[in-house]
């Protein structure tokens, strides 16, 4: 994916955009393989340090990285 707007630095943004684009496509195809009438609406990845949320669309992706305080 090509980053349009970001609040992080360039290199991190490009990295996230590229990796998450592929992952989102893979997640979407997984959902549709299981049920062709279904489609991906939202993707959340939780890791030790933070949570990554991806809102997909036909043309755009919105990626939000949150540090959940517990």
């Amino acid at each position, binding site marked *: 994916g090509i*980053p349009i707007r970001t609040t992080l630095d360039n290199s991190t943004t490009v990295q996230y955009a590229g990796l998450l684009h592929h992952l989102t496509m893979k997640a979407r195809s997984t959902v549709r393989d299981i049920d062709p009438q279904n489609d991906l*609406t*939202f993707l959340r990845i939780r890791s*030790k340090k933070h949570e990554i*949320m991806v809102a997909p669309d036909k043309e755009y992706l919105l990626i*939000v990285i949150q540090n959940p305080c*517990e």
Partner: protein
Amino acid sequence: PRPPLAAMFADGTGPGADVESLWRSARSARCEAKSCQTGKISTAETAVQSHTSRDASVQTDQSKDAVQDFQQEIQVDYASLLSFLQRVEDAVIKELNKNWKSRAFDGFEVNWTDQNETVLCLHTLSYPEAQDQNLQVTSVSWNATGSVVACSYGRLDGGDWSTEKSYVCTWNLDRRGLNPQRPDLVVDVPSSVMCLAFHPSQPSLIAGGLFSGELVVWDTSRTEDPVIWRTGMTDDTHTDPVYQVNWLPDAKHRNHARLLSVSTDGKILVWRKERDGRLALAEGFAMVAQQIPRSTRLKKFAWGEAAVGVTSLSFSHFDPRVFVVGVEGGYPLKCSTAAETLALHRTGSSVPLRAPAELAFSPHGGPVYSVSCSPFHRQVLNLFLSCGTDGQVHLHSMLQTQALVSLQLSKKYLFCVRWSPVRPLVFAAASGEGNCNQCFCSIGDVHLFDFEKSSQKPAVSMKQAAAECPVYCLEFNIKQTRLLAAGDATGTVKVWQLSSDFTEQGPREMNHLEQLASEITD
């Protein structure tokens, strides 16, 4: 009338004497004319010509998906972008809020790797010849790739005069035929090596500081003579043993590093490499007692004009100009390479020495043997540890003079303390000899401390050797984060494999560390 005597003598000329030259005739008498000729060389004429040819040209094609650079002008349809954002905004905000309040994942941890519950001793390395000479391991170091461990043999209790030979031995732990009694490389050194440091990016260079005050750099990939640079004994060299040597990244040239050496003569010197294999002094600092700033809260000792012996040094990971030194007087000091004031009473060196000390922290009850700056804490509240002969480890913040936490780890001298490179709350300390009649802790332990588990006693204590011998040095392996090397007085180096709870960072460790630092400063 006398008879004419002259008549007896008459003029005359005698015939010349000839000596026939013999050699020409002799030579020609023995000469013969000969001729020789090579045998006939057979040659043949042939011609070669390619009978078919074809023209071809090669050109790279414009790649279909060109590399998109972020700075390029991208055609963005802002209207559709806006409608997209408006569509997803609610959903994303709802998820963000849910997350922030969620307790669903509390205490949920996933184990991706095999959990290793115990701490084991993987290797016990030693060099029998050095052990026969009763040499002790004075320093260990891991190389840039994390597969080679080097140790230096010498004597830490050698006193003022020591002319013992010593050795630097390296073992490659990833090699198949690793023989723990036979190092891969042994370098004979004419004087006792007190400290070692591998180059941070070139895996074969190792620097050592000697008892005589010199610094030597060896290249372990050279078979004939591994010495490539040395300081030699000049006016600039330390007059006391060098207790710590570090590689400093050189700001101007990426690949070249400078060497920094620390010695009990009070000088901290930075050396650069010259072409002829010499190390020349680039800049230097000297610690003089009068120039050490003392806060009014600390007790005043009678300092006088003595040089303050420096035993250890650690650079801050966040500000490369700030470093912490430990001195024989028991004070950890915060110093800066940007200091301008000249040191007093330091003459006789080619480069003017400066006084770097900016702040003195609360002292230990004895000399400080080791300091270590945390690689994790953020810039403002930089944490470091110091340990000394009083058996205590102090956790300090660079902002205040009083220690944040003081731990009495043992009644023994603590020779070395190091932060773990992966877990912000873990550090290791090496304990040694000392006068202890009543306590039950054994001599010669490596203590692993985890602030998350307990802030009073060590999480794990590893006994280095069956007999009681002090452990003088330890180093974490930065590349293979499970390994910890420790060297002791019997001349063995033990490589410990740490259990997974010491090597995997927990989810909230950074927060804990910051909490720990801030709750004590308040």
